[in-house]
């Protein structure tokens, strides 16, 4: 049996996390079909068909799918689910919203947010915000699985030529209406996907002092994070919160400034590739996870850090 991946897109382009989910799906079974549910999304169908790992694109095109309402998507997916061994989606807000609705109606206990495919029925997934890893085996006949995008490489996007099959729309819900979407337009990369994140904690002492963080972030093209303590103290709004109850981030470089390293903060960043801690308390727990620790007063260290960065000829963006 083949596996079915539900594509995330904006009717113009494939969203990047779908490419990571495609890699994971192909590790479950190489006979990978992608279901594209959209409105006037022919360009998306074409790009999906050019992904070498994709064997077939199923394309449902109808205006009711313009805004990815989970209720409408679910009805469309259920029409085709019986032909597949696995229904798969990325574990971001798109897939997290959608997949359990599908799984419940198929009477399947979903396996959420996997970070490794061990076999077609056995997966590794983090629990307790990554403080433990669980190896789980699904005993349902059919599986519903969501993929943590940052744990899989993005699939190649060119060179393939999968068949595109047009299929019919399903019924529409009357009970959910899309009103609007405000995309946060920022010159800065998004916290969840940024290559570099610089975070401030209670050590910053005030909201104004976050400017020291912002200046370095501008230089490094980094996203700005914060500890729960800094958010609770009102220094910065909570969409910046990194940690168990905030965002889990896995950047190439994570710089923790004035953050002591409470358990719940560590849970949100300790999988980062390289961690830097700047803190004047040499005993702070953050140093136990830091690759490079600098015991220093951040009010002196941050301006110096910026100065040193300015001396570099090139900075990777």
């Amino acid at each position, binding site marked *: 049996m083949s596996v079915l991946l539900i594509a995330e897109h904006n009717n113009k382009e494939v969203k990047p996390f779908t490419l990571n989910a495609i890699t994971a799906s192909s590790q479950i079974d190489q006979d990978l079909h992608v279901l594209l549910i959209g409105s006037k999304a022919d360009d998306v169908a074409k790009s999906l068909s050019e992904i070498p790992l994709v064997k077939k694109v199923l394309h449902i095109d109808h205006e009711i799918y313009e805004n990815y*309402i*989970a209720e409408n998507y679910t009805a469309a997916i259920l029409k085709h689910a019986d032909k597949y061994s696995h229904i798969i989606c990325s574990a971001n*807000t*798109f897939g997290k*919203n*959608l997949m*359990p*609705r*599908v*799984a*419940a*109606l198929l*009477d399947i*206990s*979903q*396996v*959420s*947010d996997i970070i490794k495919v061990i076999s077609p029925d056995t997966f590794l*997934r983090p*629990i*307790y*915000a990554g*403080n*433990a*890893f*669980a*190896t*789980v*085996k*699904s005993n349902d006949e059919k599986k519903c699985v969501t993929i943590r995008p940052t744990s899989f490489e993005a699939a190649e996007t060119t060179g393939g030529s999968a068949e595109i099959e047009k299929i019919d729309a399903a019924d529409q819900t*009357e*009970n*959910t*209406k*899309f*009103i*609007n979407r405000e*995309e946060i337009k920022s010159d800065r990369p998004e916290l*969840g996907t940024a290559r*570099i994140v610089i975070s401030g904690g209670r050590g910053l002492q005030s909201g104004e002092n976050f400017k020291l963080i912002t200046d370095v972030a501008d230089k490094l093209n980094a996203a700005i994070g914060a500890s729960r303590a800094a958010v609770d103290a009102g220094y910065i709004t909570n*969409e910046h919160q990194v940690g*168990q*109850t*905030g965002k889990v981030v896995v950047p*190439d*470089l994570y710089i923790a400034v004035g953050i002591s390293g409470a*358990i719940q903060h560590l849970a949100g960043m300790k*999988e980062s590739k*390289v*961690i830097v801690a700047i803190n004047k308390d040499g005993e702070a727990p953050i140093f136990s996870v830091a*690759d*490079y*620790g*600098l*015991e220093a007063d951040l009010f002196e260290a941050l301006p110096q*850090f910026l100065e*040193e*960065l300015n001396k*570099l000829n090139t*900075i990777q963006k």
Partner: protein
Amino acid sequence: MKILVAVKRVIDYNVQIRVKEDGSGVVTDNVKMSTNPPDDNAIEEAVKIKEAGKATEIIAVTVGEEKAQETVRKALAVGADRGIHVKVDGNIEPLAVSKILKKIVEKENPDLVFMGKQAIDDDCNQTGQMLAAHLNWPQATFASKIEVNDKSLQVTREVDEGLETIEVNTPAIVTCDLRLNEPRYASLPNIMKAKKKPIEQINASDLGVDTNPRIEHIKIEEPPKRKAGIKVASVEELVQKLKNEAKVI
């Protein structure tokens, strides 16, 4: 309008999780337990809606072992009117919880069901959406703002791209984000009063729901440990290391 709020008892978010040596799970003995953080936001929102005169009754429900009752008691202390504790021992998956909650919804006929978007123990993020599916109700997940109208809700959702606003007809399920509100603390008099509020106990087995796990936990292990790092003496050294050794800038 009646609001049902589902709450879950989990290991407190500030506790260092320890994995059992035999790989069977995490240590829960003598560990501080609390209400799952976004479930506190769900209760808070229901209480605010009631205070605004738009709801008449708030029922807090939990599914779990004997001690799970504590989370219901806490909900009663911050403003829920009565509680339901569906007793079940052992590991129970979101699919089974959603089927149990469906039975409770059919019994209580609420107009709204609120719960946290995700539990911080199993991190599944499934129960609300599954309940919505079983009931064929609309779902508004990851809510950071809720406006209650006569027969509908306008809900702003936290999505990867930013904020999405949808309108759902009631009855509906809402799963709550931490940004929805600031949960209040229970005052001592209210904690005392909550002791007198009723909590109905129901055995899951009496509801006719199959609660057997479908997912086997083969092994629970500690995540790979990070290699011990080094301390650098100066900002200059730090930048040099990042540039030439780690090669990340």
